[in-house]
């Protein structure tokens, strides 16, 4: 029973949701939608587990005085600050304090961290294009032409811009389409293995 029930749950719930994609039937629609809603609720419970994980992991780091334990205190305090204010204010995430924290702490930090990617991408490119292989050369050539096309917007060299559009919409798109089709196949294979009970990542 311990093994069979999870398999049944996974297979039945999965097949129902999948059937809903291909068969239009009022009852099936309703059941499928209900299952999806339930999945959302169950996943939200996982966040409670996430809270416990953060709390215990970082507390234990502080307790053992592990490397960088001071920062663990910061993590716990910041998390509780948001949670406490979020639950004190009736609007929750849209309350004044939480909004303030979001607008002036989380958003600028997050946006700037992502802006760092410009630097990291450039140094990764600097490193990668030193590989002297045919593949690397093709990639470098395409990158250069596309970047030139973007840079050419400020000049009268508009053929560069047209070439960029052609690269993006023909040869590059062919490659992307191939990758997308392959990934879709991979997703289908991986998902089907769950749906027919062949792969049981949930089971012991």
């Amino acid at each position: 029973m311990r093994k069979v029930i999870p398999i049944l749950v996974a297979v039945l719930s999965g097949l129902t949701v999948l059937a809903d994609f291909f068969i239009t039937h009022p009852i099936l629609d309703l059941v499928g939608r209900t299952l999806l809603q339930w999945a959302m609720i169950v996943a939200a419970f996982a966040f409670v587990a996430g809270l416990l994980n953060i709390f215990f992991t970082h507390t234990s780091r502080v307790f053992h005085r592990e490397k960088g334990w001071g920062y663990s205190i910061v993590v716990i305090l910041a998390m509780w600050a948001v949670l406490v204010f979020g639950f004190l204010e009736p609007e929750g995430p849209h309350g004044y304090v939480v909004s303030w924290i979001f607008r002036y702490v989380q958003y600028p930090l997050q946006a700037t961290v992502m802006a760092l990617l410009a630097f990291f991408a450039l140094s990764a490119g600097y490193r990668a294009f030193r590989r002297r292989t045919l593949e690397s050369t093709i990639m470098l050539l395409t990158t250069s032409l596309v970047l030139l096309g973007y840079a050419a917007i400020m000049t009268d060299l508009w053929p560069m811009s047209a070439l960029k559009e052609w690269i993006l919409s023909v040869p590059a798109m062919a490659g992307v389409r191939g990758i997308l089709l392959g990934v879709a196949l991979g997703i289908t294979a991986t998902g089907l293995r769950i749906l027919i009970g062949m792969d049981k990542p949930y089971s012991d």
Partner: protein
Amino acid sequence: MLNPDFIGQWVALFLTLVVFSYLIKDNFLYRLAIHILVGVAAGYALLVAYKAVLEKMLILPLLQDPQTNVGLVVPLTLGLLLLAKLLPRMGWVGNVSMAFLFGVGAALAIGGAMVGTLWPQTLASISSFNLAHVGLPGAFNNFILFIGAISVLFYFYFTGAQRRKALRAVASLGKAFIMIAFGALFATGLVTFVTLLISRINFILEVVGW
């Protein structure tokens, strides 16, 4: 003058500069900022999960109208079982909940991949080379699209087929198309990052009033 928004602007500016300082050297302030960010984001996500899902979709319906929403007991039970995963010995109790999530997730993934990508993209790859239908440029482009997609698919062959010389040639062509796509995606990704950088620097200049 000292209203919260004014203070917030300068806090945001300070934090922005702190993150940029990472480029010069990894420092104490940067690490502090990142750990604050991690804590805040985790707290925020938990808050949203509770307020938008648990409270709105589970707790309130169950409290206000238990009769019609009696079905919600199922996700409630599954959710509580899920928490048992954290316990070393009782973890298996939560397997049912994980099974449910995996099942629904797999179905969504397959359905989406089939209906959204596999069929439309396959059909879109089926295009004519006939000069009478699409003209020379169209035929040329369609030919490249066809060859590219097919050869990339070939490149990913896992089981042995690449041992044949002709097939290996197709696979190398696929690799070339992948590299062209990578080159293009690298460039456009860089464009996005530079745009984000511009907007951050713009923010700094705005706050200091350049």
